[in-house]
């Protein structure tokens, strides 16, 4: 099974492992990520304004390109996923945005949100199936108490993302279970790490990340799994005295599938 794949800027630089382990694991699980031949940065944050058109175009290009390839579009980074899925929803539901974006892009065939956008986790859950993954695990991560860190962008706004219950999600926990580890549920798993504000005001993200880590530690989490490079950065930058390693979920997947070099 083949998917169009949108890695995003950070996965080519600071978050190479998130990308590499995802591709490795995909092959082992029987699906292929075909990187879009040309893609541009999504902008990192969804432009909420009704009159923002130019800032949505890179997403529309990626979406149209997947449509032309006849494939679903898979994303991995929470931020890219959020931006592209929300823009796709605009192209389906906001006539004005769709009209202007199409006028601007002059694609061979107009784009109106035909592409299905899937997060890598959704592929694991809905296409491969967590039961199947569990069967293919050769190196179960037994005994590890892992907290799922959804952050804010993976699930919200729930009506658009339609990935899981935004207040009581299970997809990452089910994933953690599938790779043989023990998921630990904690209340702050869907609260913000401080996000891009870290650039201007690191103190805010220190507070926000600290609150997440505090609650995770309180709840018995020994390791956090995330899908977002910025979450990983903010949580790692602000350990606040908590010794909880933060890793990409794809790294855990590769490890469990026996694909991680140096692993056993």
């Amino acid at each position, binding site marked *: 099974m083949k998917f169009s794949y949108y890695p995003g800027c950070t996965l080519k630089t*600071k978050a190479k492992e998130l990308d590499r382990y995802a591709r490795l694991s995909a092959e082992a699980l029987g699906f292929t990520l075909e990187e879009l031949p040309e893609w541009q940065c999504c902008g*990192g944050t969804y*432009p909420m*304004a009704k*009159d923002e058109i130019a800032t949505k175009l890179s997403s529309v290009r990626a979406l149209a390109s997947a449509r032309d390839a006849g494939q679903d579009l898979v994303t991995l980074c929470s*931020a890219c996923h959020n931006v592209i899925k929300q823009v796709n929803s605009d192209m389906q539901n906001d006539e004005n945005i769709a009209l202007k974006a199409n006028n601007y892009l002059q694609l061979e065939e107009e784009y109106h949100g035909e592409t299905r956008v899937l997060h890598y986790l959704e592929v694991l859950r809905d296409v491969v199936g967590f039961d199947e993954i569990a069967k293919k695990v050769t190196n179960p991560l037994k005994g590890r108490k892992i907290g799922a860190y959804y952050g*804010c962008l993976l699930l919200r706004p729930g009506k658009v993302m339609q990935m899981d219950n935004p207040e009581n999600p299970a997809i990452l926990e089910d994933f953690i279970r599938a790779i043989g580890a023990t998921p630990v549920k904690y209340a702050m798993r869907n609260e913000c790490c401080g996000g891009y504000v870290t650039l201007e*005001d690191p103190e805010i993200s220190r507070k926000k990340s600290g609150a997440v880590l505090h609650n995770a530690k309180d709840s018995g989490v020994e390791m956090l799994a995330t899908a977002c490079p910025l979450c990983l*950065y903010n949580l790692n930058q602000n350990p606040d005295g908590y010794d909880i390693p933060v890793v990409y979920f794809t790294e855990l997947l590769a490890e469990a599938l026996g694909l991680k070099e140096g692993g056993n």
Partner: protein
Amino acid sequence: MENKVTKETILRISGVNPRKCMRCGKCSGTCPSYDEMEYHPHQFVYMVENGEIEPLLKSKSIYKCLSCFACVERCPRDVEPAKLVEAIRLAVIRQQGENHLKPETIPEVLNADLPQQAIVSAFRKYSK
């Protein structure tokens, strides 16, 4: 600022209907950036509805929103306060010389681990 930003402009940019608000305060109850803000999510809704745009334009609060969608997700009336914060911020930075983040300041704040994502997002939010 030269051009006066009106309530209508903000409503048009944001697509928000503040009349849907029933004054429950859940947005401000859930906002993770509340303490950093001079005006809080519920006040953005009230003040826009009352046409009090000027103080919002001048407030640093518009740079403290994390765009985490907590207020959007949890509002029982689908008001989407974050979109008002975004519209006010855009109304400011779209004006000449009002960019909040300038490229020349980037080297100072850069660190080796900072993901690109943070920089592009911040530019989206703070500059035009």
